[in-house]
């Protein structure tokens, strides 16, 4: 039930519904649990509803932290 992988928003209708691209497949999603959602945003979808939006700045921080750990352990 839990799609743990983020998906990108491709379309949004006026009624808050739309589509995401989930690993290459277009899937219908309801966006009414998120505010100010736009095409191009990355979201996590659960039971047909987008429940949260990906924060790209936070994602970059995690990735750089992981690279630092690998480098520190490699020394």
């Amino acid at each position, binding site marked *: 039930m839990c799609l743990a992988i983020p998906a990108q928003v491709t379309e949004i209708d006026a009624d808050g519904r739309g589509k995401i691209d989930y690993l290459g497949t277009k899937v219908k999603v309801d966006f009414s649990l998120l505010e100010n959602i736009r095409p191009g945003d990355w979201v996590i979808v659960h*039971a047909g509803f987008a429940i949260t939006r990906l924060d790209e700045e936070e994602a970059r921080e995690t990735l750089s932290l992981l690279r630092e750990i690998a480098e520190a352990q490699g020394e």
Partner: protein
Amino acid sequence: MKELRDGSITRALLGQIKGKTSRLGRPVRIMEVCGTHTMTIHRYGLKVPLEEAGVDMVSGPGCPVCITPNEVHEACLDLVTQKENFILASFGDMTRVPTRKGSLQTAVPARSSLLKIVYSPEEALALARAHADKEVVFFGAGFETTIPAIAVTVKRAAAERVGNFSTLTALWLIPPALRAILLAGETSISGFLYPGHVSAIIGLEPYRFIAEEFGVPGAVAGFEPNDILLGISSVLDQIMEERPDVRLEYGRVVNPSGNPVARAVMEEMLEPRDALWRGLGRIPRSGLVLKDSYRAYDARTRYGLHVSEGSGDLPGCRCGEVLRGLISPPQCPLFGKACGPDSPFGPCMVSFEGACFIHHKYKIKQRMG
């Protein structure tokens, strides 16, 4: 995002974790609350390397299908086998849970009634709009991750006055269940990996009592292998610093204050009640039901369903002990013998978030380490 699965980073993180447990001088036991975390740990073969690094991971109650007592499934079976002209719309894994009355997959529906698998409660509402001549009931279990979707759907049904739609739900709240596990004191848990997507809805505050009242640290973790290890590393830091806290290691997806829109619709539509969890027993204010003003959309009220809780586990099934973290799935005598994914004996072997299913699926990998 390849760093989240990169094997050299995984090894570096495991090395860091091993260093921390060596400095602590004792092994630690951490409960991963969410079934999808259990899946990642086994899929990427982290269980054994973590044990070697001094961390024993124990699975928690984080599988809604697993913790829903059989009596709820049996009430649903009564509906579909006894009521005519009826559509029961359910999440797929709910239909395979075996009970004393069989499972929904084996049930013979009453005349003109049928079972439909849906992926979203909204799909069930669409069925009700399209089949005005039939009664449609959505049957679903879920945690805070799923509950907002169900609440929005009922709100829409009420706004549109869809008179032939109702829900038979088992809605569970994670924080009260963690309190119950800590109060029971059966497993000595040194820390928690909090579920990533439940936390995306509720934020960090609802876990605060675990650090403050119980002195147990925890971290919200994501679902990639290196996310899990970052979460474990954070829990170890808190143990070493003797500063139990609720830390966020999944900031790219979880806002510390959660999703306010989702929480608002939950509060608008639902209210807490004491609920009976498989294995964990009755837990105060751990379930949600529709408020009185929306009871017309609750199948229990609408069809006078009686759910006699407390006696429905199939004899021999040890799912309850698995859910409490008392035994590991292979310790159940039925595991892999009378109970497997093709012919599950209990719900923990049905759901892909179930600990027994996950252990079974990845047992070869685990043996190879």
